[in-house]
């Protein structure tokens, strides 16, 4: 039973994700974690500002249920099923990150430098988190999906648009990590 408290290997996590996708399909829905952003915007009245949000959000309510599930899952995973949160990434990655200034690499789940309490009051790390969020929110709606909707659901259905989206994700991600990070950090 001890293994439940350790980080879970990819061959457990991947299949579990596939299971969730099929559960949602058999419930007549689909597996996608970004349309809930649209639903929340609509709930807050964005429908009055732009036609895009003028949708019947009640039909999308299940989005919010999945979202709440993810929150509960995170709570259970972190507080009830863990004994320490350090993420053991590749030592080479750790040294690259330390050169960039991330001393917490290898020792915590999220970088303290960006997500710690003193980081929130620092204007630079706050902007980084905010801008990162804006980019992913904007991009996910433009591409009509994020990693769950495209990399997993879309590619499972052998959809070419999803492949294009995933290629885009990687172009963006690699550019950010290899070109922009050394400039930002």
């Amino acid at each position, binding site marked *: 039973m001890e293994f439940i408290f350790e980080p879970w290997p990819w061959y457990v996590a991947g299949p579990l994700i596939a299971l969730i996708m099929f559960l949602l399909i058999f419930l007549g829905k*689909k597996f996608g974690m970004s349309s809930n952003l649209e639903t929340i915007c609509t709930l807050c009245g964005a429908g009055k500002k732009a036609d895009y949000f003028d949708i019947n959000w009640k039909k999308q309510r299940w989005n919010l249920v999945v979202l709440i599930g993810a929150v509960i899952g995170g709570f259970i995973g972190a507080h009830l099923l863990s004994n320490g949160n350090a993420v053991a990434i590749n030592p080479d*990655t750790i040294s690259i990150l330390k050169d960039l200034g991330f001393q917490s690499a290898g020792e915590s789940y999220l970088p303290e430098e960006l997500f710690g309490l003193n980081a929130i009051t620092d204007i630079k790390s706050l902007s980084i*988190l*905010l801008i990162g969020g804006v980019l*992913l929110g*904007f991009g*996910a709606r433009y591409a*009509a999906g994020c990693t769950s909707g495209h990399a997993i659901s879309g590619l499972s259905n052998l959809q070419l648009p999803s492949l294009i989206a995933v290629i*885009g994700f990687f172009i*963006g991600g690699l550019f950010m990590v290899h070109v922009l990070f050394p400039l930002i950090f």
Partner: protein
Amino acid sequence: MYKSEAASWFRIYEMFQFQSFHMYGIIGSALILGVIGVQLIKSNKLKSFFGEPIKIEPKEKGVWKYLNGGIVFGLGWALAGACPGPIYTLIGAGYVSILVVLAGALLGTFIYGLLQKKLPH
């Protein structure tokens, strides 16, 4: 998401450095099972729990919206170290600062809604 560390900023960085199989293993194994399962559902014309025939909708055709949207998303994914699913997971895990990322994501979604008609799709 949490226990597999897919919600960890460090793992996303590592993935874009190609320095571990872990993230590729997660997405890859989910995908292989996904492809097999979807093909099974289609060839056997399986029904949902509610008795409705399952229709897995193909994505709308297009190139630019997927490429441009994908690139912008990728930039944000690497910077924030999370995509929407893990954002909610991290909130549950108690990392309050991820709420800033969520606020950004909602803002980004809203901006897209405003600009949508003027962008190439």
